[in-house]
């Protein structure tokens, strides 16, 4: 069942009691455990900030995502003004990393993940500081990589080649340009 944007409610993790998070099951124990046991602490110590997602008709949280400030540093040989049409000798792009993103099992493949990526784009674009890229260390699984690719993320070229060369990675670094 598709869930529309105007049926979602968002709450910062600090406004959600721990007991409300216990029923959350997305099928990946690490993601479930992070929300239940760690998300409050990571937020309280300024490490990653979690947003809990509710949907009309569902009594428990249906998804969550966590965000952290990030930067994408270019190799020293490629710091050629970021390819900009003016003189700006900057060596990195400001970014925000999606450190966690999970949807409860019954709502996976409902389009909710796509909606969450869109909301994240909106949230980070209104911050009173520059953010050009979203980054994510996507689980190295076809379904996960295809999800992010469908939502405008590109694989880090070097890691993509390594993956094609059968080097095993747990995750693949991917980027999304907020301006495109």
């Amino acid at each position, binding site marked *: 069942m598709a869930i529309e*944007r*105007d049926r979602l*409610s*968002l*709450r910062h993790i600090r406004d*959600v*009691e721990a007991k*409300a998070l216990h029923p959350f099951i997305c099928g990946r124990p690490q993601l479930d455990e992070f929300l239940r046991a*760690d998300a409050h602490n*990571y937020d309280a110590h300024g490490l*990653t900030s979690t947003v809990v997602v*509710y*949907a*009309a008709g*569902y*009594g*428990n949280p249906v998804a969550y995502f*966590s965000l*952290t400030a*990030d*930067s*994408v*540093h*270019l*190799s020293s*040989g*490629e710091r*050629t003004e*970021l*390819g*900009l*049409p003016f003189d700006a000798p900057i060596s990195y*792009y400001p*970014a925000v*990393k999606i*450190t*966690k993103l999970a949807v409860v099992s019954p709502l996976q493949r409902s389009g909710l993940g796509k909606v969450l990526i*869109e*909301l994240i*784009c*909106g*949230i980070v*674009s*209104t911050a009173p500081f520059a953010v*050009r*890229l979203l*980054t994510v*260390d996507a689980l190295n699984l076809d379904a996960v990589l295809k999800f992010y690719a469908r939502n405008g993320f*590109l694989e*880090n*070229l*070097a*890691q993509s080649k390594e993956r094609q060369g059968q080097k095993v990675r747990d*995750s693949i*670094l991917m*980027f999304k*340009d*907020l*301006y*495109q």
Partner: protein
Amino acid sequence: MKPAAYKATPKLSAQASRALLEAVGGVSLSEKRRRELAALAETARQAFARPLPAKAHGH
């Protein structure tokens, strides 16, 4: 020991840096994209302000 909750983004290789520059370097924010992002931001703002579902508990 728990696995890392997230990793730092490593400095890109020369090849990956060039690829990123080619994809992003010459692009500035268009008016169309600015409006799209503004609309998404407003949607997110409304979602933060929207009451929780009636059955939600523990708040």
